[in-house]
């Protein structure tokens, strides 16, 4: 997954110790979710086994004596990963859609379902907006990515709210 590619990519600028690598990762990508040391070492062990990194040992012992360096095969892998487009997520199994349809089928208030969801989405969007405006450019870009996705959900929600009568006519037995 992307954590191992990110760690591998960070090594392209030069060999690093595990703890150094973790710190760089957390700073660049780990905003909400810092890596565990364990995850760094297990990932490095796997990359080592696959020949994507190699170890430069320093005198002494313990895991922090090891410096990891990327291999040519590793660089090729990173390049390939960066240039490969991500699979767009189709979201065709939306839980929210299921709730709306079930509410209509069972005579519950589907507008209420949508309104409750809108409030929840907006709550999160407010928090992200605040964080974005208090933060640096990296915060801004990360939060904007989330905000645009949440906005897309909300647009769907508004369109659905406007078409509830038609949907009800279709799904009611």
């Amino acid at each position, binding site marked *: 997954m992307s954590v191992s590619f990110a760690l591998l990519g960070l090594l392209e600028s030069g060999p690093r110790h595990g703890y150094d690598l973790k710190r760089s990762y957390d700073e660049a990508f780990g905003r909400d979710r810092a890596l565990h040391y364990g995850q760094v070492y297990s990932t490095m062990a796997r990359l080592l086994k696959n020949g994507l990194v190699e170890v430069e040992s320093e005198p002494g012992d313990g895991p922090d004596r090891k410096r990891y360096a990327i291999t040519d095969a590793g660089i090729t892998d990173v390049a390939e990963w960066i240039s490969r487009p991500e699979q767009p997520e189709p979201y065709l199994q939306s839980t929210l859609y299921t709730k709306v349809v079930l509410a209509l089928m069972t005579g519950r208030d589907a507008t209420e379902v949508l*309104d409750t969801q*809108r*409030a929840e*989405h*907006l709550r999160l*969007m*407010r928090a*992200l*907006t605040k964080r974005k*405006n208090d933060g640096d450019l990296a915060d801004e870009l990360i939060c904007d990515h989330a*905000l*645009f996705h*949440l*906005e897309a959900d*909300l*647009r769907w929600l*508004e369109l659905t*709210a*406007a078409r509830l009568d038609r949907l009800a006519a279709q799904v009611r037995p």
Partner: protein
Amino acid sequence: MADQPLLTADDVHLSFGETRALQGASLHVYGGEVLALMGPSGSGKSTLLHCLAGILTPESGSIRYGDRDMATMSDSDRSTLRRGEFGFVFQFGQLVPELTCQENVALPLRLAGAGRREAHRQAASWLDRLEVPDVAAKRPGQVSGGQGQRVAVARALVTRPKVIFADEPTGALDSLNGELVMKLFIAAAKETGAAVVLVTHEPRVAAYSDREAVVRDGRVREQEPAR
């Protein structure tokens, strides 16, 4: 947040010919809050905003500002209230094209009787606050859309109103400029303690609010204020 609403719409009805724009709209606006009015196009958001601002008079129901019923106020009292306590930001076309941006911002102060020098000084400081000091001498036609909206925000804030009514203030801007306008607008409004009634159909703009109310078919579903 104050317990007593600053502005209240109670069961407001208003039609334009056959079109029933508002059919029992009720809403509360509290001092210092940013309230987003959302909802589909044609649902009655702008009409409700104009009623709240005393620009339109409801056929039935009431609009109260504090404990004063707007319907029982004289026209001149209402326009004094609008000039003194309210500020307005629209989508576009609100600046006087013949005046410079600084003169536009100074205008509400001049109309309220301030001297020219003092009005211009305050206008300049608001243009600074909205990070457009360099447009002071330009006319609205010579500045970008985003700059123009920041001038409009400065003009709305210059009289330190209690309530600012903003109808799709970023509607004509791209995302980046819209965000910048909102960020500066809301920060400045919070600083002066003005409440903002913000009509928008854009969720990312609504995310600058403290709470939202959704207008649908001329009625309002209002989210409870946080206590």
